[in-house]
Every structure is written in structure tokens, then in C-alpha cells.
């Protein structure tokens, strides 16, 4: 069973931060949406009242900020490696995106060898970084300023919509898409199979093995 060999992907600190961010983000999205639209109004009793939901919104915001600050303090090198990769969009990433529509509907397709992150993951990371930072900044203004610049209201709502729309795609790919959902193991146990690594992150595979040789 050589193909079952496992490879380390994410450290515990990063995984904890990812799930803390995910839980806070979903909580913030739901409680914030209650002010934004009416589609989730049936959830209001869960929080007691709309006022209650806005208190939960602020508590979750604190956890979201912790989820961002924690890995920055504990694993700065892993974070900066991630940022380096994400802000380095290559040819291979662009080619990945061409094959992405097929992957999105669950059809396996040859993709050019990808690094630690593929082109899609990079775009998702970029969107989440920009939206996360913008939501924290605008959210803190709305929360703490007695007279926030009024642009913060539309900005907060816009970043929420973009962040949520892309998070929906991210969650689907990670949980429900039959050809990419193995990657979730990397975020749960911290490991993925070497087989999956070879097939989906060819360049990373090569980098790891070159080092060993």
C-alpha cells in the first residue's frame, strides 16, 4: 500500500486557526445577514432576538480576530510561506483555472503540476485575505467609532457578500466535490496521501523529493 503513504500538510496551529476562523466566519455571516437581508430571519429565535444576534456578531468577531492573530504569532514562517505562494500567481495557476470548470462539476481532468497550493486555492485565499482584512477593519469602525465614516457600511456589506459567495464555493469543493474532497484531510488530521499529493500538487511533490534526494 505504498500509495497510502501520508504526507504532512498543515501544522496543528494552522489547522486550529483555520477551523476557528471558519466557525467565527459562518457565525458572523449568519448574524450579520440578519441585518442585511430577510432570508435568514427564521434563525432569529436562535439568538433570542436581533439584538442578541448582534451581540453574538461582536463575540464572534473577537474570535475571528484571534484566528487571524494566532498563527501570525505562533507560525509566522508558515503564514509567510502561504502569503508568498498566494501572491505569486504563475502560468501553472492560470492553466489550472482552465481545467477548473471540469473539476468543479466533478470531472477528472489533467492539470499541469501545481505547487503547494493550486490556482483555485490561491484565488480563494486571496479573496478571503482581502475580505477578511477589510471586514475586520470596517467592522471595528462600525463597532467602536461613535461616528464611523459612512463608507464603512456599504464596504462591510460588500465584502461580506464577496467573502460569503466565495466561501460557499470553497466549502463545496472541500466537502462535497468527489474529486477534491480528499484535501479536507489535510485540514483535519494535517496529512494527505502521497497519491493525492502527486496527482494534485505535482510541483510540491517534486520539491519535497528533490530535497530528500
Amino acid at each position, binding site marked *: 500500500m505504498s500509495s497510502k503513504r501520508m504526507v504532512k500538510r498543515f501544522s496543528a496551529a494552522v489547522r486550529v486557526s483555520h477551523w476557528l476562523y471558519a466557525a467565527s466566519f459562518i457565525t458572523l455571516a449568519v448574524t450579520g445577514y440578519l441585518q442585511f*437581508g430577510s432570508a435568514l430571519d427564521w434563525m432569529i429565535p436562535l439568538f433570542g432576538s436581533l439584538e442578541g444576534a448582534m451581540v453574538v456578531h461582536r463575540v464572534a468577531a473577537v474570535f475571528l480576530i484571534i484566528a487571524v492573530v494566532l498563527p501570525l504569532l505562533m507560525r509566522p514562517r508558515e503564514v509567510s510561506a502561504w502569503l508568498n505562494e498566494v501572491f505569486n500567481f504563475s502560468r501553472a495557476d492560470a492553466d489550472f483555472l482552465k481545467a477548473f470548470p471540469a473539476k468543479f462539476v466533478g470531472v477528472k481532468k489533467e492539470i499541469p503540476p501545481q505547487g503547494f497550493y493550486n490556482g483555485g486555492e490561491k484565488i480563494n485565499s486571496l479573496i478571503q485575505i482581502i475580505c477578511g482584512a477589510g471586514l475586520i477593519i470596517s467592522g471595528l469602525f462600525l463597532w467602536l467609532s461613535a*461616528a464611523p465614516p459612512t463608507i464603512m457600511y456599504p464596504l462591510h456589506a460588500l465584502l461580506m457578500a464577496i467573502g460569503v459567495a466565495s466561501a460557499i464555493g470553497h466549502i463545496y469543493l472541500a466537502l462535497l466535490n468527489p474529486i477534491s474532497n*480528499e484535501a479536507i484531510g489535510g485540514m483535519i488530521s494535517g496529512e494527505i496521501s502521497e497519491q493525492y499529493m502527486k496527482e494534485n500538487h505535482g510541483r510540491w511533490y517534486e520539491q519535497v523529493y528533490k530535497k530528500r534526494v
Partner: protein
Amino acid sequence: MSRMARLIDITRCTACRGCQVSCKRWNQLAGEIGAFTGSYQSHDDLSPGRWTMIKFYEEKKPGGEMAWHFRKATCMHCADAGCLKACPNEALVREENGTIRRIEENCIGCGHCVQFCPFDIPKVDEVAQKMKKCTFCYDRISNGREPACAKTCVPRAIVYGTWDEMAALADERLAQAQKLYPDSRIYGRDELGGLGVIYILPDTPAKYGLPEDPSLPFTLGLWKDVVHPFGKGLIGASLAATGLAFIISRRNAMKLKESAKLEEGGYDDEQQKNG
């Protein structure tokens, strides 16, 4: 019912503060003793329990001489009300008679209305988590009475009637006022689509703490008319696209499963390997 309005003629107002008292009395708001403000003004600002007050503005003339300006501050019950548009929970409604009325149960005290009122009127009671402001004596006027502040005003500086009557009366009052104050003007008849308070001001609005050309910040329209529909569309589109992709991917997986029965190393086998 037609739109109602108050004409507030500052050239006749004597700053007696009778309206301030009768508003408290009718609306059963407790009296509050404020700290000395450094002028004749009674309190520093409107408050959750103070829905109208006379505001004083001192002006030092070039010769060193002091000029006193004062104005009854109150909710204008705007035709294009920023507070109402900003409210996330329908806690403000426009009544047929023009009142911008609060719905107490719906108010969550978030204060968005405060940020988008061009006249700085709404005040949030932080303990009760409710916004408070002038009700236009909705209980009185919907029963054919005039607002408490208008009823009490001795020099008839506050007059109540239909908006059209008040708009016409403004011309008459202006002509009288200009004899004494040549710089007099009408404020609120054309501003923001017509306010529910039409002032006769003896001088420029700035001297009375009023914006020269009040407008709603463009960020309010951007937020409610652009970002909200766009955001809902975007989230809806994302849900629809992933939902569709999910169904297609399941069908593809089923097909692979079928063929996996025929050949080893097919989809099923791979799934087991991956684990």
C-alpha cells in the same frame, strides 16, 4: 390624509422654551437637569428623553459685538428620510400624514439612523437599546389635534397644518419677516424633497446650525440600493452554481461507479484507496 407639517418661524420665536416643556409634558418625559453649557442653552443636545429644545448659537460680529441666534431643534419628518432608509429592521415607517414614526418593538438600538440623519436628531437610549426622537405627536395629530409644541406656542412661531398650507403660509410670513430681518429666508420647503418642518430663518442656515444644502450621503444609496441587491444576487448565484455543480458531480460519480463494476481500478477502488 394629506401630508402635515409645522411652520417654525424663528423670527417670531422668543426662545421661551414653552415647546420644550409641553413636549416633555405630553410625552411624559422626565425632566433632566443638565450641566451649565456656557450659554443660555438649557442642555448640551437633544437626548432620548428630550425630543425638542431651543439651541443657541453665539456669533461674534467683526466689531466685537455679540449676536444671538436660536432655533427650535426637532425632527424634520423628512420626505426623503435618511434615518428610515438606514434602519435595518423596519423600525421607522412613513405614515400617510408624513410622520416618520418609530416602531418601538422593531428598534434594536443599532444607531444606523443616527449616522444618516442630516440633522443629528435621533438619540439612542443605550440602556433600553431604543432610539428616541420627536413623534410629531402622532397620537395627537392622528386624532385631529395639533402637536403639543404648536399648541403651546404663544407668539404663534410654531404653526401646524397641511404641508401645502404651511408652504403657502411661509411666503406670507417671509414677507413680514423681511421687514425686520432683510436676510430672512425659507428653509425646508425645497430641501431634501420638502421637510415636514418649514423654517423662517432670519439669516443664513449656517448661523442656526443647519446645513446649507442638506443631502443624504451617497454612501447610503450605495449601501442600500447597490450593495444590498448586488450582494444578494452574488450569494444567490454562488449557491445556485454550487448546487448545480453538486448535482452534476454526483451524476458523474454515479456513472463512474457503474463502470467501476466492470473494471478494476475504477472510481470505487480509488475512493477506497484514498480513504
